[in-house]
Every structure is written in structure tokens, then in C-alpha cells.
């Protein structure tokens, strides 16, 4: 890695603020991006990393603050209007986590998409193809410019994204979790590419949750927490433990309502043994006891939702999966969610709008959809349906102007309570809830914690998947932490603590491969 202390500032941000409506989500961030430097941005989920890079790349407009751009060796000068188009023309390019590629077109066509070279009337395909080849060669890539995008591997697609950035003469390249979709070898290829880009004087912003990657390639680390700047640090001065500590930062116990944790029985409600998910090498095992809250922590993309949905039959397990699932000692294999429901399991999806509620349908329609079998023989008993719905409105305190509105017109918190009412109406004994409080206000949040506490008190067993580490700690008897599609640890008692969870969530610690941990936590893993 070259030393770049004297390199020129390419893009400089001063006191950046961003508000959505009346809520400020980013509070006064300063940032200097220098040519030939990898600038890592670190923070927990929701710390403001994505918002920050969207401001830098013009996808969102500043609410306050200033961006300055250094041009041709001149010092940075303040910018006027800044949007995505202007940013790209100025060479500030964001590569999204989900690629922006036209799958049906060729590599060359993608590289020049929206940027086409044309003759008098027709596209100059020859020049575009030649230039594409040239860009790809600079990246030491042997991708054929004529290949169709859809035939390329994920890592090759990423390469095309970077070549596309080069076609725009990128001087600042922002990579938003570029390695989330890559294997380890592919990541190494990417890092070599980053080195070559640095040598050409490109400034790179690198977002990743994987601390060992940050340690490997970052020159400067900026840490964000709750939308505010924690600080800028030379990468050499921070250990990975320091990074985790700085990301988390606060004492968390005071924020959380004190929920009594009744004792857990020895009876196993749900046991998953050696389940293999597609794309993962290591099978996963865990168990949930009756009356227990088992928290699942981990960073976004660590595979928690995929795991739950595979257990429930919403996703297919890997072809070579040999593992199995037991519900109260009985071996099951769910191919449909209805089979899981009939065994007394309910699932609260994290995607409230996309897979939870029919937004254009009425409230009662949504409420009874998961439990229609309960109220119908030949016909649906609409009287019983209405009565159950009215009862649920009271129990779950669902507030609305009038009960004939569509579900999409409810506020987020009330939608979430309706969704909870919907799945609990099936009277499950095992409940898997995924991100139960995402995007809802603090009042409704505490109501939902209250419902969860009631469920535990009445003998239900619960899996809580959440990226909100405070609620995982506050509610769980045990916490399983996932990293990269594996459970890296199951924490109990005093171990359930934010820094410790973060160490497992970022892959710093993995106690599943050690035999002692296995017998203690009741976890078995094929790796052992």
C-alpha cells in the first residue's frame, strides 16, 4: 500500500447533514477523500453509511453542509448544485451493492450504457467495443466485451461495474459493500484491482462490515455511529477490537425496558440439525427450548433471514442438504409455510410491505389471511372473522381512522401490529419474528416488546432475529450470532454483551469450531 500523506484532496465534505422530513439522520459529517487512498467507512446497521455515500454521489441532496471538489490539481472548490448526473460527469461514481446492469445486453453495451458513443446517426459499436476491451485490460480482466451480462459470474459483473466507472473517468470510486456478494478469492481479486486503481490516483471509499478486510486494505477509517461522526483514524492505529468498540460505543442497558425472563424448560421446541443452505459450505445447527427467547444477531447479509426461511420451507435448502428439523421431538420437513403453521409455527417477516401485508386490501382481510382455516368449513364464517378482528384491534391497540381503510394506509407501527396480530391469530406455540421493530417509533416498539414478554410468560417459544442489538440483548435468554452464513457463537448469561456480540458478528471470534463450546451451547456443527 503506497504512503499517501501528501496526496491531494479530491473530494471534501464539510458538516454534511441530511434530514428526511423533520428527522435528521446524518449530523454534521466531515470527510476528506484523497487521491490514491482507501477510505473505509464503518458503522453499525443504520449508522448512516449509505446515506453518506448517497450524498457524496449525488443520489440524495444535502440538507446542510458543503461539498468541495478538487479539480485538476487545484485545491477543492465549493460545488453548486450536485446531483447524480453531475457527480458522475465529475468522476464521482457509486457502485451499488445491487448492480445496475442490463442483464440482456452485452458487456460493452453495459459499459457505455447512458454514455454511448455514436457517429452521425448510428451507434459506433466498433469504438465502444475496442474501448471496453481496453478498460477491461487495464483491470487485468479477460472478460469478453461481447458476452451477455446474464452469463457472467457475480464477480465478473462487479468487474464490469468498475470498468463502467472507468468509462466515466472515475476519480472517486465508492464501493458499497462490494464483497458482500463475493467469495474470498473473488474478494482478493477485487483488492488487487483496488491497488491498481490507487496507483492511477483514484480515491476509493470502501464500505464493509468485514473488519479483517478493512484492516487489509484501508488507509483511513471513518467511523459513524447513530448518524454522527465518531472520528477519523489512520488504519494502522486501530485494531479490529478498537473498530468494534468504536462502532458500538454506548452503554445500552438503560435504553431497554426491563422484561422478566421466566425460567426455560429443558424441553426442546425446535431443533435444527446440520441444515445446509444454498451457497453455504457449513451446515447449521441450533435448538430452541420451550419458553425461551433465542436471539439471532449478526450484520445485514449474515444469513439469519435465509436460515429461518429455509427452516420454514419458504426457501429451498441446498441440494446436498442432509440435515433435518424437529418440532417437539418430531422430525419434519417443511416444503410450504402452511405445513409449518399446522405444526404451530408462525413467522413474522421483516418485509412488512413486500411480503407481510396486502397493502391495497382491507384490514380484516389481511388479519385473517394466515388463519382462515380456523374459521371456515365449507364457507368462511365472516361473523366469527369480524369478531376476531375487532378483538385483535383492542388487544394489539391497532389505531386507524376507520376500519374500512386499506392496510397500506396504516402507519408503519400499526401495520406492524396488524401483522403481528395476523400471525398470532393462528395460535402458534413457536414464533419466529424477524426485525419486529424496524422502522417504527419508540412507543410502538415498547408495545411490541410488551407483547413479546406476554408471549414468553404464557409459555410460547420465540426466535428473535434482529439487527437492533439492544433488543436482542434485552429480550433474549441466549443469543446466536451469525457471520457469513454460519453461526459463530451462542452466547449465554454475562456473555450477552454488545462488544462480544460484535466480535462474533464480524468474524473476529468463532467458538463453534472448538469442541468445548459445542457441548456447552448445545450446538453441533459439521466443521467440528
Amino acid at each position: 500500500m503506497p504512503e499517501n500523506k501528501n496526496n491531494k484532496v479530491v473530494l471534501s465534505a464539510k458538516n454534511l447533514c441530511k434530514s428526511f422530513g423533520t428527522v435528521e439522520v446524518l449530523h454534521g459529517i466531515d470527510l476528506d477523500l484523497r487521491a490514491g487512498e482507501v477510505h473505509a467507512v464503518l458503522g453499525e446497521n443504520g449508522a448512516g453509511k449509505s446515506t453518506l455515500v448517497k450524498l457524496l454521489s449525488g443520489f440524495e441532496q444535502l440538507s446542510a453542509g458543503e461539498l468541495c471538489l478538487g479539480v485538476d490539481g487545484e485545491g477543492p472548490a465549493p460545488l453548486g448544485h450536485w446531483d447524480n448526473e453531475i457527480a458522475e460527469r465529475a468522476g464521482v461514481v457509486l457502485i451499488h451493492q445491487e448492480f445496475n446492469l442490463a442483464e440482456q445486453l452485452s458487456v460493452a453495451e453495459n459499459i457505455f450504457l447512458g454514455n454511448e458513443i455514436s457517429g452521425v446517426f448510428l451507434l459506433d459499436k466498433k469504438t465502444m467495443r475496442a474501448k471496453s476491451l481496453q478498460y477491461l485490460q487495464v483491470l487485468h480482466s479477460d472478460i469478453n466485451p461481447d458476452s451477455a451480462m446474464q452469463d457472467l459470474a457475480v464477480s465478473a459483473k462487479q468487474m464490469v461495474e468498475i470498468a463502467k466507472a472507468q468509462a466515466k473517468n472515475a476519480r472517486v470510486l465508492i464501493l458499497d459493500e462490494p464483497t458482500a456478494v463475493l467469495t474470498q478469492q473473488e474478494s482478493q481479486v477485487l483488492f488487487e484491482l483496488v491497488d491498481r486503481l490507487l496507483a492511477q490516483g483514484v480515491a476509493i471509499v470502501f464500505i464493509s462490515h468485514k473488519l479483517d478486510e478493512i484492516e487489509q486494505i484501508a488507509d483511513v477509517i471513518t467511523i459513524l455511529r447513530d448518524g454522527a461522526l465518531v472520528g477519523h483514524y489512520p488504519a494502522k492505529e486501530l485494531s479490529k477490537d478498537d473498530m468494534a468498540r468504536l462502532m458500538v460505543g454506548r452503554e445500552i442497558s438503560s435504553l431497554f425496558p426491563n422484561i422478566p425472563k421466566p425460567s426455560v424448560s429443558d424441553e426442546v421446541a425446535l431443533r435444527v440439525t446440520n441444515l445446509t443452505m444454498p451457497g453455504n459450505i457449513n451446515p447449521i445447527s441450533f435448538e430452541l427450548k420451550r419458553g425461551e427467547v433465542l436471539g439471532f444477531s449478526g450484520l445485514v447479509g449474515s444469513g439469519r433471514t435465509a436460515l429461518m426461511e429455509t427452516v420454514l420451507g419458504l426457501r429451498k435448502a441446498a441440494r446436498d442438504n442432509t440435515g433435518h428439523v424437529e418440532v417437539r421431538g418430531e422430525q419434519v420437513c417443511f416444503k410450504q409455510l402452511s405445513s409449518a403453521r399446522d405444526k404451530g409455527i408462525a413467522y413474522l417477516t421483516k418485509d412488512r410491505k413486500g411480503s407481510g401485508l396486502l397493502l391495497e386490501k382491507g384490514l380484516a382481510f389481511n388479519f385473517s389471511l394466515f388463519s382462515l382455516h380456523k374459521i371456515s368449513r365449507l364457507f368462511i364464517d365472516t361473523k366469527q372473522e369480524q369478531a376476531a378482528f375487532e378483538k385483535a384491534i383492542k388487544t394489539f391497540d391497532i389505531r386507524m381512522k376507520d376500519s374500512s381503510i386499506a392496510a397500506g394506509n396504516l402507519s408503519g407501527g400499526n401495520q406492524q401490529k396488524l401483522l403481528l396480530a395476523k400471525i398470532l391469530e393462528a395460535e402458534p406455540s413457536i414464533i419466529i419474528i424477524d426485525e419486529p421493530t424496524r422502522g417504527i417509533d419508540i412507543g410502538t416498539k415498547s408495545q411490541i416488546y410488551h407483547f413479546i414478554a406476554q408471549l414468553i410468560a404464557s409459555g410460547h417459544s420465540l426466535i428473535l432475529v434482529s439487527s437492533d442489538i439492544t433488543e436482542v440483548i434485552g429480550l433474549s435468554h441466549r443469543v446466536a450470532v451469525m457471520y457469513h452464513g454460519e453461526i459463530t457463537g451462542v452466547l449465554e448469561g454475562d456473555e450477552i454483551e454488545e462488544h462480544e456480540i460484535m466480535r462474533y458478528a464480524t468474524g473476529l471470534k468463532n467458538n463453534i469450531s472448538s469442541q468445548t463450546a459445542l457441548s456447552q451451547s448445545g450446538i453441533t456443527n459439521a466443521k467440528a
Partner: protein
Amino acid sequence: MPKLDLKTAGPFLALVIIFIIGILVNDAFLSSGNLSNILARSSFIGIVAIGATFVITAGGIDLSVGSMAAFISGCMILLMNALMDSVDSMIAIILLAILASLGIGAVAGLINGLLTTKAKIEAFIVTLGTMGIYRSLITYMADGGTLSLNFTIGDVYSEVYYGVLLGLPYPVWVFLAVAVIGYVLLNMTVFGRHCFAVGSNERVAKYSAIHVDRVKTATYMLQGICVAIATIIYVPRLGSASGQTGILWELEAIAAVIIGGTVLKGGYGRIGGTVVGALILTLIGNILNLTDAVSNYLNGAVQGIIVIVAVYLQRGAWRRD
């Protein structure tokens, strides 16, 4: 507070207006012969359209119904003619043909359903393909000409189309029965609810423990059975089948469904509306027959305009929500 719901009442209002126009155009319009003729003719499209209401409500589309009807007609005629030599009872032959017809309809629907759900091909493509296949099969079976039903059976069977009960032709009673069953199925059963949910958002349906593939396949089978029922009352009308049988039925059926207020993108369907839609389409044809103001050859154009206007009004009502 009761208020006029234009979305629900719209198709019915349109029917009333067209009916009044009919009265004004020609005195013969109100004759009982003409009215029962209108009802009998609307039965074919109406019954097919009730099946289409399920398919469209659940988010699908079936373009194969017209050629499926022609194919089933051909199969029935060939079967009945073949049975003439071995079976003595005309009634038994006809009943066997009816059973065969229902069976072929259900299997044809099953094929459409499985190709859309299991092979994951768009319904538009699947049914465009089967539409071509059935159309070609009937042409082949008739050797490019016309298949005719044996006259002896035809005489007995014609009762099904021309027979009258309580002043109404049998096809009208069949139409009514299919409509009532369809209404109950769509609005009062779990299956009906699931059709709405699947058409509204398949993902949410899946996460609500609904067997999405099974529901969709069942709608195509229902559609196939409805086509078979329509064919059963259609064959005795002419006693023949050819490559021209059932031409454009798919468009008329879809038009009836859409005029009736069912949403083409799925999630919302109305059997009552479909019945009204089928009546409107037949009325227009009938009125054009009774008047010299517009050529009868422009029937298709008028129907087309009505469909476009109906969807435009539907969209407008949608946006105000």
C-alpha cells in the same frame, strides 16, 4: 351511510343505458323471442368469462379458451359419432360425451396451470401456445373442413340448446347456475379469498401460508371446466365444429370480465360484474342487428371501444382512491 359506489354500479348502469337504447332503436327488441335469444347467446361467453374471472383475479390470463372450446367440440362430435355403432341409448352417448368434455376441459386447464406455475412460463405465453395448438388440432381433426354430428344424435341433443324451462332456454339456466356457484366460490370460500390474495401480491400470499401454485393451477382448471360446460351447450346449437368454431371467444370473455370491473392485473374480481359484462357485449351485437344506423360489421369495433372506455373509467376510479 349508503352512497353510490360507481365502481360496483358502473357496469350495471351501462347495461341499463344500453338496454334503453335497444328499446328506442327497434320495437322488436323487447319481444320475448329476442330477449331470450340475447340471454341464450350471452350464456356461452358468460360461462367462459366466469372461469376467466377466477384466472384474472388470481393474477393470470388464459388466451386459449376459444380454441379449447373448438377442440372440445370436435372431440365430443367424434366421440358421439364413434359411439353410434356400439351404444344403443342416445342419452347414454350424450352423457358420455358430456363427461369426456368436462374431463378434457379440466386436463387442458391443468396443463395451462402447471406450465405457468411449475415450469414458470408467463401465462400469456403458455396460453398463447396452447391456443395455437388446439386451433391447429381442431383444423386437423376436421381435415380443414367441418365435423358434423350424426343427425340422429343431433336431434336428441338439440334439446339441450333449444329446450325451455319456465320460459327460459336451458343454456340460460346453466349460465345462471354457473354464475351462482362462481359467486359463492369466489366470495364465500377460502379458495376465493386465496385467489384475491394471490392476485394481489403473490409474495404476501406465500408468506401467509397459501399454496400459491395450487391456487393458480386450480383457477386454470376451473376455466377449463367452464369452457367445457359452454361447449356442452354450444355443440347442439349447430351440430358441427370447424377451425372457425369459438374464434375470438378469448377476447370476448376477457372483455366481459374487464367491463364487469375485475382488475386485469389481478387481486380484485366480481362475478356479478362479469355476468353484466357478458350481457352488455351480446346486447351491443343484438342492437346493431336491429338497427341500420351502424353496420353490423362494426360490432367488433363497438365492443372494442366499450372495453377501452370501461378500463379507462376503472383506472380513473382507481386513482381517486
